[in-house]
Each structure stands twice: as C-alpha cells, then as structure tokens.
C-alpha cells in the first residue's frame, strides 16, 4: 500500500479517535443523566462550559493550569448539583416536553450569561502539553502530546465511571436508584441525594471534556458556544449507542469520530454532519432503542 495513504489512514484514525473520545465523553454524560433521571439534558454542553469559564477565570489571578482545573471540577459539581435540586427536581414525572423546553432554555441562558460576563471572544487556555503533531515518515500524524493527554484522560474518566458503577457500593446504589427508585427507597437508599450526585458526576465528565476540547482539541479556545458542535455529535453518539448504555455511548462516540474524520478527509467537511445524521437514521431504523441497548424498560 502507498506509504502516504498508510500514513493518511493512520492519521485519520488517530485524529478521529481524538475527536471520538470527546463525543464519547459527552454521550456518556448524557447517558448518566438519562439513566438516572429520564431527562435529556440539552444543557449538557453549556453547563460544563460555564464551570470551565469559572475555573479558568482564575488565570487572571495568576493561577496555574492544574489549580484552575480543580476549580472547574468543583464548579461543575456545584452547578450540576444545584441544577438538579433547583431546576430539574420539579420536572420529574412531568410530560417529556417540559424538561426539554426547560433545558434548552437553560442552555440559552447560560450561554448568554457567559457571553455577557466573559465575552464571546475565544479565550485561549494554557496547555500542559504541546499541541504540535508528531510526524511519521515526514508527514504529520494527527497525534501530539496534547492529544495523547486528551485520549488518556478520556480513557481514565471512562474507566473510573465504569469502575464506580461496577465495583463500588455507591455505584450499586446509583444503578438501583435509576432502575427501581421505589424499591431502592424501601431498602433505605437515599434516592434523592443519588439523583443529585448523578447530575454532579455527569457535569464533571462534561467539564473534563470541555477543558480538553477548549484547551487544544478542536477549537483551541473557550467560547460560550465551544461545546455546541461537540454536544450535537455526542448526542448523535448517545442515540446510536443507546441512551441506556454507557459502553454503547462511548463506542458510538469513538466510531463516529473516526467516520467523521474519514469523511472530512476523503469527501469534504460539509458532508461530515450529513453522514453522521445518516448513520443516526440507519442505526435507529435497525435498532430504535440504540445499537447497544439490551433492555428497553426503564423507569422515568
């Protein structure tokens, strides 16, 4: 095979993988909230964006990258928790359109507030690692120290979330609260607190994604709309993988990222969203509950 083509394919796979893990992270955060509360959080891109602005606002006070990241995570925990308690809790059991309208409204409000406080001009974030691509046989490889950091962080987050759910008492309670809230309460599980915790956790996953995306990923800069495009692809990945399946969301996100990269490279950039939507339609026609969803019943 033509070495150039080989390096081009490798480059596309690596570039797609980098984008794909961020789609997968957004999809995972959507699934976390959907599984625990039955709500599609359309503000799942905007909430982490806001928390990231709060954390990296401290750059003005000469804080370093890592302390800012910690503040972003704490802000995400608070924002996720407060949103569930003050905005979402009254929406449980209401018609499905209600939370959709409220969360779309919340997305618009958060982006407007962020623009008014921090302006819409892209704010560059410092990067702990170089974003300059490595080269293979003289050709750029779509892989840099930053993308390795991006992929490995995403992997660590995904494994940590999976381990939390699979191996810990807290994870068992979170799963039980989502699957059978009434039975869980009868067993002494504080379901209300766990719903709040689910939103906090999902927001933190979103915050980490936003830091990676804005800090050297797609856009290299933080704007109030930084997560809009990623959210759209993350949403498509969650729908393809199945809103019930965290593994499905991640796998679909990675596959979508790689497909998008190939379409962008071999067709053109305008075809990317079209192909993504076609994939979504085909997947949903074949398996309406998502490719990886095994059990269709769930409480809301």
């Amino acid at each position, binding site marked *: 095979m033509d070495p150039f083509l080989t390096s081009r394919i490798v480059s596309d796979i690596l570039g797609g993988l980098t984008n794909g893990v961020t789609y997968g992270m957004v999809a995972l955060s959507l699934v976390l909230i959907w599984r625990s509360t039955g709500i599609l959080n359309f503000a799942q891109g905007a909430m982490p964006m806001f928390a990231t602005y709060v954390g990296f606002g401290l750059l003005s006070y000469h804080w370093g990258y890592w302390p800012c990241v910690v503040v972003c995570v704490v802000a995400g925990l608070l924002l996720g928790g407060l949103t569930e308690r003050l905005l979402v809790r009254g929406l449980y059991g209401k018609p499905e359109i209600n939370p959709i309208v409220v969360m779309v409204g919340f997305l618009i409000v958060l982006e407007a507030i962020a623009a008014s406080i921090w302006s819409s001009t892209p704010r560059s974030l410092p990067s702990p690692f170089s974003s300059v691509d490595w080269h293979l046989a003289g050709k750029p490889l779509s892989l840099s120290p930053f993308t390795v950091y991006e992929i490995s962080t995403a992997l660590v987050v995904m494994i940590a979330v999976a381990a939390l759910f699979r191996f810990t*008492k807290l994870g*068992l*309670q979170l*799963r*039980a609260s989502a*699957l*059978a809230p*009434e*039975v*869980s*309460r*009868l*067993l*002494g*599980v*504080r*379901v209300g607190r766990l719903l709040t915790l689910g939103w906090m956790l999902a927001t933190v996953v979103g915050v980490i994604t936003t830091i990676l995306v804005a800090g050297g990923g797609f856009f290299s800069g933080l704007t109030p709309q930084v997560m809009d495009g990623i959210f759209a692809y993350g949403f498509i990945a969650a729908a393809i993988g199945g809103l019930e399946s965290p593994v499905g969301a991640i796998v679909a996100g990675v596959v979508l990222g790689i497909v998008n990269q190939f379409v962008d490279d071999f067709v053109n950039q305008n075809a990317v969203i079209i192909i993504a939507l076609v994939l979504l339609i085909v997947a949903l026609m074949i398996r309406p509950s998502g490719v990886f969803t095994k*059990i269709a019943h769930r409480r809301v």
Partner: protein
Amino acid sequence: MITIDNLTVSFGAVQALRSVSFVAETGKITAVLGANGAGKTTLLRTISGLKDPKSGTIRMDERNLVSMKTEDIARLGIGHVPEGRGVIGEFTVEENLRLGAMMAKVNLREGLDDQYAQFPVLGERRKQHAAKLSGGERQMLAMARALIAKPSVLLLDEPSLGLAPLVTSQLMHTIQALCETSDLTVILVEQNATSALRIAHHAVVLHVGKAVANDTAANVAANENLRQYYLGLVE
C-alpha cells in the same frame, strides 16, 4: 411492635383506609386479609412512608413514623417486600442481596452466608440475573434481600401471589420459622387467607378500607361471617 391508630388514607375523594387501628406485636405474625381494593397494599405503603395518611398515627415502639421519609423508615429496621416482589431484574442475585445489606450494620459475608443457608437455591444462582429466576425464586430473593438487613419488622405484600401451592406452603413455613427463631414482627398481607391464617397469631380483616375484624387468627378463621369479606363475596 407496630401500633396503628385511627389511620385514614385518601386518594382524592376516595378513602382507601378509614380509621383503621390495630397492633402488630413483637415476634408475632399479623395477617391483614381482604378482597381486592380493601386497602391492604395501601396500608403497607403507608407504614413504609410511600403514601402519606390523611390522619392517624403509625408507631414503631414509641416512634411516630408518619411524615418520615421512606428511606429513614427502612433504616429504622422495617423491611418491606412489595407486591410483585420488586427484585431488580438487571441485578444479579448477589447484587440484589448486597443492596439489601447496604444500609444495615451487618457483616456482608455473614449475611450472604445466612441467606444462602436459608434459601439454598439463591446460593446456587448467586451470579444469575434476577430476571432469569422463576416466580418462587424471585419471591425467595425478595424475602432474603429484606432479611439480610436483619429487620425488626417485616411487611410482606401478597408473597404467595402467582406461586404454586407447594411453593406457597414452603414460603409460609419459612415465615413462621423466622418468627419463631427471632423477635421479628411480621405484617402479612394476603389474599390466600387460608394459608395466612394457618401461620398468623393475629388477623385484621379489611373491607373497603375499614377494619371489620381485629382478633386472634384462630377466632377470625372460626368466624364464618367474616369469610365473605376476605373472600370478596360482599360488595
């Protein structure tokens, strides 16, 4: 001991329970009998805090349970096996049991061993998803999940529902044995009145939300006039 005093529960304009009073004594089985719609399940759901009463009190020893949260009531040591069993089908047998043991201060390994000794089939299927168990096995799992937390009160809602007569008989013997070997207080809601009265010490008969009998199980079983209520022969 659970003391229910003048308990009234409404669903809108419909009164599901009307001034119901009785005492479920420590270490005894109290059967609650009645036809469909008599208010039996509502009674258990109200004790567990899943439904707020309109008036009246529910006391566990001296503590009023009314207006407490369901999870706090459970943590006081009240185990509730709901109608339809309520096992989590997506969880394995052992995960269901682990969840049951979580809130109680019990040693998990010992608790699991105790329940596997009590219900050997659960030990054999500990890694199997609960959705794959038979009706009788699910009932055993629901019981074991409540018992692993070592409750002082056990609320059982129609445990024999959908079970074969032989399995029902085994289940009733298990409940009886549990009471005899511990100070467990059992409130047993059953449509299968004959089985329930056979093992109960005390019985309450509900008819459209009202307690029409509150006596020893032997007296209730002997009263021909009461049968029409729990057999659903009275409109």
